[in-house]
């Protein structure tokens, strides 16, 4: 197989991302009111140059915001000071910071999808994981930091797992559709967080804002020895966890059970696997992963629990899990891509005042194109995937 052919599986996701950006730019152009006024004033050429200029400016800002600005790298190489390096590397570091929670929630969703369970409750599991970690850290304040840190991470896992267990259990026992229950439990989780943030135990002594005390006394250590970079070991742990998830899914009997149940629940049952058990296990593992993501978010990145701890990670995770083909390695790549988008989006907003929500829209388009590979193939006139030999094209032909 040639190296080019090896890249073929990447063609669809890459083209999906490209298409999403093209559609996004169309929306950018047609909402560029000042430019449109130029158009209506009868100067279409000026309109085109202005509008396209704005789009290019925006996407360039997005790129430099996500991966760094070449001049800053040049400066860093010239000066060589840690400060200059930090400035140059920061966009990249922030991209990975943004990717870290997405890897965890993405893995959570991938595990659930692989098991045939549609966990839309990543948000709830994530925030409760964060809450559990914060509460544990505050409770164990004064203990040696490593112990507190470890306990807090475990608490995050436990809280997330517990929040995943409920819909899993309900589905296994009563058949309650997990899409509905997990969404409802997301809302309940937010209420629990709000309630918790009103307790004196959580709140800082000053004021009565619903926000937790700062818990930087158990901070996850930073990964890079440069000043002011937030990238922490949580990212490395995320990679390790992804490898573990991969191992679990594809090399262990429990993982095999989950995958079988996900692909054909009846056959799994006939083969002696416990369908209910698989559903519950999948949801618990899924919840635990999301919860661990939440824990790392408060313990590593923001050091404070608040209502805003979650930035829709559970939802984004669905997108990137699909984008990554529900494979842990794919999830990592997709999470870094989305992290880059989100991170670069902020730079784009600062420079061009384009709303961040453009990227939410673009992310939605990415999922759409990835979920409809035939559409992408059609747009780009790609050869369809070669028909598998002997595959019955329709039931009729075989009967």
């Amino acid at each position, binding site marked *: 197989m040639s190296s080019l052919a090896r890249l073929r599986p990447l063609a669809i996701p890459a083209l999906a991302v490209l298409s999403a950006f093209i559609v996004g730019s169309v929306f950018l152009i047609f909402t560029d009111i000042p430019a449109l006024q130029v158009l209506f004033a009868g100067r279409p050429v000026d309109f085109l140059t202005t509008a396209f200029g704005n789009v290019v400016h925006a996407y360039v800002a997005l790129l430099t915001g996500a991966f760094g600005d070449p001049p800053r790298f040049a400066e860093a190489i010239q000066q060589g000071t840690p400060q200059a390096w930090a400035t140059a590397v920061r966009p990249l570091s922030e991209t990975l910071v943004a990717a870290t929670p997405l890897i965890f929630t993405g893995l959570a969703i991938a595990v659930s999808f692989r098991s045939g369970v549609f966990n839309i409750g990543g948000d709830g599991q994530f925030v409760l994981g964060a809450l559990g970690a914060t509460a544990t850290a505050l409770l164990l304040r004064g203990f040696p930091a490593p112990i507190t840190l470890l306990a807090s991470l475990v608490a995050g896992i436990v809280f997330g797992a517990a929040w995943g267990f409920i819909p899993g259990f309900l589905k296994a026992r009563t058949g309650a559709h997990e899409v509905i229950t997990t969404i409802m439990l997301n809302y309940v989780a937010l209420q629990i967080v709000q309630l918790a943030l009103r307790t004196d135990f959580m709140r800082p002594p000053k004021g009565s804002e619903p926000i937790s005390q700062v818990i930087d006394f158990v901070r996850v250590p930073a990964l890079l020895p440069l000043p002011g970079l937030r990238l922490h070991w949580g990212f490395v742990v995320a990679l390790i966890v992804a490898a573990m998830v991969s191992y679990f899914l594809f090399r262990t009997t429990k993982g095999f059970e989950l995958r079988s149940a996900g692909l054909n629940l009846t056959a799994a049952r006939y083969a*002696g696997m416990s369908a209910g058990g698989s559903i519950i296990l999948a949801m618990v593992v899924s919840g635990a992963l999301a919860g661990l993501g939440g824990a790392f978010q408060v313990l590593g990145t923001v050091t404070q629990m608040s209502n805003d701890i979650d930035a829709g990670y559970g939802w984004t995770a669905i997108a990137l899990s699909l984008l990554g083909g529900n494979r842990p390695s794919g999830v990592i790549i997709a999470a870094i891509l989305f992290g880059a988008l989100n991170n670069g989006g902020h730079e784009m907003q600062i420079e061009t005042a384009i709303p961040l929500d453009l990227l939410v829209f673009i992310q939605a388009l990415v999922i759409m194109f990835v979920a409809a590979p035939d559409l992408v193939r059609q747009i780009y006139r790609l050869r369809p995937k070669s028909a598998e030999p002997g595959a019955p*094209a329709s039931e*009729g032909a075989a009967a």
Partner: protein
Amino acid sequence: MRLELREITKQFPGVLANDRISIAADRGKVLGLLGENGAGKTTLMNILSGLYRPDSGEILIDGTPRVFNDPAEAISAGIGMVHQHFMLVPVFDVVQSVALGAEPVTGAVRTFDRTTARARVVELSTQYGLDVDPDAKIENLPVGVRQRVEILKALYRKSDILVLDEPSAVLTPGETEELFTIIRGLAASGTTIIFITHKLNEVLEVADTITVLRRGRVAGTVLPSETNREELANLMVGRDVELTVTRGKAHPGEAVLEIKDVFVRNDRDEMAVRGANLEVHAGEIVAIAGVQGNGQTELVEAITGLRRVDSGHIRIAGATVDQAKPRKVSDLGVAHIPEDRMRDGLVKAMTVAENYILDSYHREPYSRGGRFDRTSIAREAQRGVDEFDIRTPSIETHVGNLSGGNQQKMIVAREFSRPVKLVVAAQPTRGLDVGSIEYIHKRIIEQRDAGAAILIVSTELDEVLALGDRVAVMFSGRIVGVLPSEQATKEAVGMLMGGVH
């Protein structure tokens, strides 16, 4: 009306389903379309009903070429279909089901005119002696009645040409006889009938002309009066086939499976098995005959631990398994070949190797301490593939890409890879070609001869008679009779299947 198909060709990716097929049926005549599974009968029928369009060839009705772009056009041309799998919405009642698609309506919003529809259903039902309660819900009707509803559907649309696809597959011999009466009546009143089947006796009994299909081509057209079963079988399969499997005498040992007064509910919470009693001994094959839907499925599921026993007892090799989980049953040495292999037996999107270990993945040597030993898995799967002659590019191929026969072999290979005390095989050869059928029958007999107890459930009377050392008949949730193979004639078993005893 006279129906003629000329040179119909239909190609699917990788399969030439219909290759220049020409058939003809005259007004008021019954054309028997005979062919084994995969011969292209259903494709031809779907072309006729407007679901598929042929790549080439033409359909003529009374000499006029017609093109059907969708079923509606076929229906309006007077073609009525009775599908093998009934096309009836379970939650509708008979009137709704019959009228669906040709509803009489009133008013601007097209309110369904139930009164009119109902009157017509009653009228047709009486006229053709179909005896159907117009207000009954489909899901509460017995299979035979559902088929009459299907025929009503065609009559309701004033179909002049009626196509019946494997109509007897779900009927008792008695019901089949009734069906034939109806068919003869319809033909007498001028309806052209195409009767699709793979059962030689039936075409011989009811058809005016027989066209035999083989591998997508017409193998020959004969008159019933000028042919016999052997010739038809030869045409159908293309070589001389042994219609009976050669098997030695059984040497029954002790009882491996004991079923005592067992009651089991179905998914709708109705009692599907009502006090079944049966014993299967080591070294014998017990074949359960019966029309589909008489509790066989539920009984098999109860034996294999998939369904709870409501009351009564099931013992396998001495252990009571009334409430046992499937895993425990399989640990007792039970091999289960499920009824619907794609739904129940295989995970399409997994590889051959993964499917090979599907129910023993947790055992040594595949798994050690919860982790897979990939070398052993590959080795064992390859051995299974070789031993059972499963045609697959590799053990890493997805099972969904294999042919039906190879998929079934896949299941048999898997189930027989463990030490087996009891084999429970439901419809083990459904939808397979003759070669695969022979192969699987051979393997089952081998297991018997190796001392396993075999329980086969089949709706194919031929299969039951060919394999069973003893033939049990299930009717209405109970075993209504057990006959030794020498007494198990078609007639005797057929009577029992129809509830006469």
